Every structure is written in structure tokens, then in C-alpha cells.
């Protein structure tokens, strides 16, 4: 975290809906948060919680229905044409499947140069030098591998190439959507370390979307927990794990499998599955799976409120730190 007072990214009341067989599916429902310059915000939740759609809406890959996304004071949701493209260079996204996100018929040096070519920001020897530097920074030998095609690389190497491409425009914000979930643990650790190194070097701000709680905790300063399109809890990473205030967060942590034979076997595992986002429960969306739910939870949706400085939770009965 830095001393800069104004956040790099400010998201207000962001909602994304999709038409679904005559119904409306609300994938992201009134999400608000801020990300400071140099910070890593982790976003966790089960599949279908809207975390990927939210990431895409920030980039305007999908359009938001309501709300605003401000990058350094510029509202992206109202921009069009050239102004939108100019602003969008400042943020980049990396996706889960590294192999399918690279054009199979282009050489990797050209893939990494794509943003430079599109923006005509470097040509000739300068373009070549930039590509070489980027590839070297992600741990790929440009002389040995630059002329190869994506199929000649493993998943981990393809993810490195995607990262090099994302960095070509020197973005300020990098959105990582499940970037290590398809990789083996040994390779996953390499990519996580690489992201930390590049973040320091480029002064990047990261939004790290993933379902794996341990991975997210290892990389994030703060973590947002999503459930059925809403952020139910947002807190500094260590606080969230030490003292989860939302019952959902607590149960999600209880379900996580640790590579530790001494982990207690008798844990409270979250039962059931999330309800359909097409027909979310009334009131609090988590109440159908919540051990603490009361009538109030069915009647009224809890408003997000701070239980401690920087620790926001949307729950009528937040759990208190055991002390």
C-alpha cells in the first residue's frame, strides 16, 4: 500500500446483467470498492459468484448496466472510441487458459509485440529490443524461443508469454483472472513469484481473481469475498483469514484443504451449493446456507458496513474476533 491518497481504481455500484431466456441474470450486483496504487486486491468466491464477470466489466469487455469505474479519476464507463482505447492501455488483463489466449499461428515474439504494433509505439530495432527485454523479464530466452509458436510451450511458459504481452504497454493496473489455476503447483509458484517481482519492478497495481484461497492469501494485500454477485466481505488479507466476520467467509475458509496432515479433520464444511443467480433468495443472499440466519435475514438485505477500519462486511450478524 502506498501513501497516495486518491485510489488508482474506484468502482461504484457496478452491476452487470445478462438476458437469459427471457429472464435477467444479475451476474454482478452493486459492487463497490477501491484499489490503491501499488496494492494487490484479491477477489475470491465459488464459481458463478461473478468474480470473472466483474473483472471483465472493469475492462469493459462486458458492459456494466449501472455504476462507474474510475481509473485515476477518469470514468471508463462513459468513455467511447479513441478516449476509451487510450485509457484502456493503462489496464491489462491476463486469463486462465494461457494456451488459448495466444494466437496459435503467430510466433511468440510477434505475439508480445502485438500491443506495440497496434499502438505503433515501437518499430524496427526498438520494437525488437522491447520484445527481447519483455521476454527476458518473464524468464523466456528471446534468442532461443522468440521464433517459436505457442504450441511448442508448456502452460506455464504460455502464461509467462501472456504476462509479457500484457506488460508491453506498461500498464498501471493488471487484472489476473485465475491465472494459475490450470498450472501444476511447482509452476504455479514460479508464476506467483514472477508476478510479485514484476509488480515491484513496474509499480503495478493488481486485481487477482481466483478460487484458491491459499493462492489469494499469498499474493494479496486486501481480499474481497464475493457471493452471488455481491461483495460480502472486504478486509486486509491477514485480518480476513484470522477473523472472518461474514459466516460465508468463515465457512469458505473451513472448506479449504491444506497440505498439512495435522489440519483438524473435524471442520465445519459449507453444505449445499449456491442458489441460482436467476432466482436469488430474498434478503441476504447467503441466508439459505447460513447457520446463523434469522427472519431478519430473509426480510432485509444487509447493507455493507465497517466492523473495523478497512474491514467491511454485509451481514446482519457479523462474527466478532474471538478474544
Amino acid at each position, binding site marked *: 500500500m502506498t501513501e497516495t491518497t486518491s485510489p488508482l481504481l474506484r468502482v461504484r455500484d457496478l452491476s452487470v446483467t445478462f438476458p437469459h431466456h427471457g429472464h435477467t441474470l444479475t451476474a454482478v450486483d452493486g459492487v463497490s470498492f477501491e484499489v490503491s496504487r501499488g496494492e494487490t486486491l484479491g477477489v475470491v468466491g465459488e464459481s458463478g459468484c461473478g468474480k470473472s464477470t466483474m473483472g471483465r466489466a472493469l475492462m469493459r469487455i462486458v458492459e456494466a448496466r449501472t455504476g462507474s469505474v474510475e481509473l485515476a479519476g477518469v470514468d471508463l464507463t462513459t468513455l467511447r472510441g479513441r478516449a476509451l482505447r487510450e485509457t484502456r492501455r493503462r489496464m491489462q488483463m491476463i486469463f486462465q487458459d494461457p494456451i488459448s489466449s495466444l494466437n496459435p499461428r503467430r510466433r511468440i515474439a510477434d505475439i508480445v509485440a502485438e500491443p506495440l504494433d497496434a499502438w505503433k509505439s515501437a518499430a524496427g530495432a526498438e520494437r525488437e529490443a522491447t520484445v527481447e527485454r519483455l521476454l527476458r523479464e518473464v524468464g523466456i530466452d528471446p534468442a532461443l524461443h522468440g521464433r517459436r509458436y505457442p504450441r511448442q510451450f508448456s502452460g506455464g511458459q504460455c502464461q509467462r508469454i501472456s504476462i509479457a504481452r500484457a506488460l508491453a504497454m506498461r500498464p498501471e493496473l493488471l487484472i489476473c483472472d485465475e491465472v494459475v489455476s490450470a498450472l501444476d503447483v511447482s509452476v504455479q509458484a514460479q508464476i*506467483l513469484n514472477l508476478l510479485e517481482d514484476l509488480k515491484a519492478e513496474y509499480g503495478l497495481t493488481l486485481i487477482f481473481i481466483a478460487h484458491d484461497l491459499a493462492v489469494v492469501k499469498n499474493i494479496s494485500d486486501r481480499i474481497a469475498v464475493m457471493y452471488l454477485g455481491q461483495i460480502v466481505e472486504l478486509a486486509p488479507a491477514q485480518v480476513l483469514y484470522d477473523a472472518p466476520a461474514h459466516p460465508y467467509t468463515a465457512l469458505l475458509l473451513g472448506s479449504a484443504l491444506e497440505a498439512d496432515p495435522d489440519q483438524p479433520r473435524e471442520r465445519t464444511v459449507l453444505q449445499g451449493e449456491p442458489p441460482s443467480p436467476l432466482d436469488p433468495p430474498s434478503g441476504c443472499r447467503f441466508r439459505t446456507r447460513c447457520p446463523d440466519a434469522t427472519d431478519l435475514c430473509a426480510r432485509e438485505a444487509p447493507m455493507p458496513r465497517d466492523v473495523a477500519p478497512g474491514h467491511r462486511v454485509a451481514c446482519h450478524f457479523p462474527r466478532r474476533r474471538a478474544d
Partner: protein
Amino acid sequence: MSDQPLLSVRHLSTTFATPAGPLRAVDDVSFDLDAHETLGIVGESGSGKTVLARTLMGLQPRLNVEVTGSVQLAGHEVVGASTARLRELWSSEVAMVFQDPMTSLNPVMRVGRQIDEVLRVRHGMDRAAARARAIELLDLVGIPSAAQRYRAYPFELSGGMRQRVVIAIALAGQPRLLIADEPTTGLDVTIQAQILDLLDTLRAQLGMSVVMITHDLGVVATRTSRLLVMYAGRVAETGPTGDVFRHHRMPYTRALLESSPKLSNAPHTRLAAIPGQPPNLARVGPGCHFAPRCDLASDRCREVAPALEPTERPDHLFACWHPLRTPSETPGASS
């Protein structure tokens, strides 16, 4: 039951003939599994764990594949058995749960009918008895309103529910051994925990043995009694789960454990990544397959493959020329 193990695997190798030459996906693997025991087989992609599972089942194709060694399942030899013989073993002695429940179920057949099929074809039940038993099985694997879900198609169920159906099919023949190949990969953590708990409950309730194949150390840490760590087709280390986690001797086991992010780590903890990537099995050298990525490797490691050696702990074996003395030992300390 006698004192001989339910499953006894000796010097098992599976070699594929590829255009690039023979590829030994499973290389001289031996282990025993007792009744009521859960064995975890852990490895990264390409470690041969899935080929091993298929070889144990006798499921690998016959063309361009050579299987040597022996797999004794409840006294029956699987290697070289005819398909007719294998069919007798499948379902009643051994059944398998695969990773992707969407592709292992027939998408155009109601799920109840897919369970019935096993009961009617293999156990000669009539339609009504099979239906009743199928609903019982759906109930057993924790599917709510089983009688209604009997008529559902796979696409109408969530991933977790589909995996429960696959488990129900596997249980239909009351097998003595259940082989689960990445049974929870691709499922959410909450559903993952539910499925693993279910498998463990069923194992105890039905008196089965389970072989759990996974890349995820979290899956095997608390739910297996023994572990087999595989790397590039070979057994790197094997032993009681707690011993492998706490007193591992093989550098690969340590690297695997240390590269997994942990919930207890502070934010921005640097992970001990293993450099490089698993080898291409069609082009491996004569020595230890992990040598190119190992910081303790010597010339000997690159030239001669180490055999499995016992430790001072019972049933704990490892294959390494430069074993770690304690799990906390630093890489430079022993060389």
C-alpha cells in the same frame, strides 16, 4: 479376508510406442494396498498417475501399449487378463471415478438409468429392483430428493451433483476397491470438501479400499493413510502420509510441499518454486528424472537412477542418491 493385501502391484511398467520412440509412462512401480486403506497417489501432470490408475483397472488400449509386471487384485491377475475376465472384476471388485463428471456420464441418458444399467447388466436385477436400488444409491451419495433426481439428465445437475452420480454408479457393484482419479479437480473448494468427506464416509461404511489420485497435496493430507509420490513415471517416495509430509527424504517431495501456497503464510510470502518443468518422457536420460530440476543433483544422479530404499521408519521408502536428513534441512547443507 486373508492377510494378503487387497491390491498388490509388482514392477508395473506401462510403455507407449510413440513416433518419438518408446515412452515409459509408468516405470517399475510396486506397492500394496490393504483392505479398508486409503492410498494417495500424488504427482504433477505427466507424472504417470492417471496411466497408473488405468493400468490398475486394465483400461489402457492394447494397441501400441506394453504392460509388464503384475497387478494382483483380490487374488486375480489384471495384467494380460482378457476383456471378459476384466469385466468380471470391474464393478464387483474394482470401480473407478474419473475427473470430469460431465464427460464420464452419458449426456442423453437420465442419470437413474445410467445407474440401473450397471445393476441390470452386471447383477441381473429386474427393472423395478434396479430402480429401487438406484434411488437408494443416489440417496447414499447425498443427492437430495433422490427419486426425482433419478429422472434428471446430467446437464440438469451441478458439477458436484454429477460427481455424486458418478460415485453412485461406481458403488453399484459394491466394489472392494474404488479408484478415484482427481475426483474433485474442477469443483469449488466447498463442494470439494463435501465430495471428499462423502468418499471417506462411504469407504468406512462400505468397507472399501480407496486409491485417490490427485495433484493436490491438500486432498491427500488428511484423508489418506499412505502416500505414493510420483515423478516422471517413477515412485519418488512412499510411506505413511504423516511420515511423507513430516520426514520426507526425497528433494522432489520437499519441493512439492514447499511450492504449495498455504493459508497460514503471511501475504507476499515468497514460494519455493521448482525451476524448470517436468521432463518429456520420450527423451529422458538414464539417471534420476528429477535431476535436471534438483539443486542437490550430482553426476551420479544424472547417470544412474536411484532405487527405492527404506528409511528407519517402517514402510517409508524413497529413491534418491542425496536424501534429505530432515525436512527442514537447507539445500546447501548436505553437499
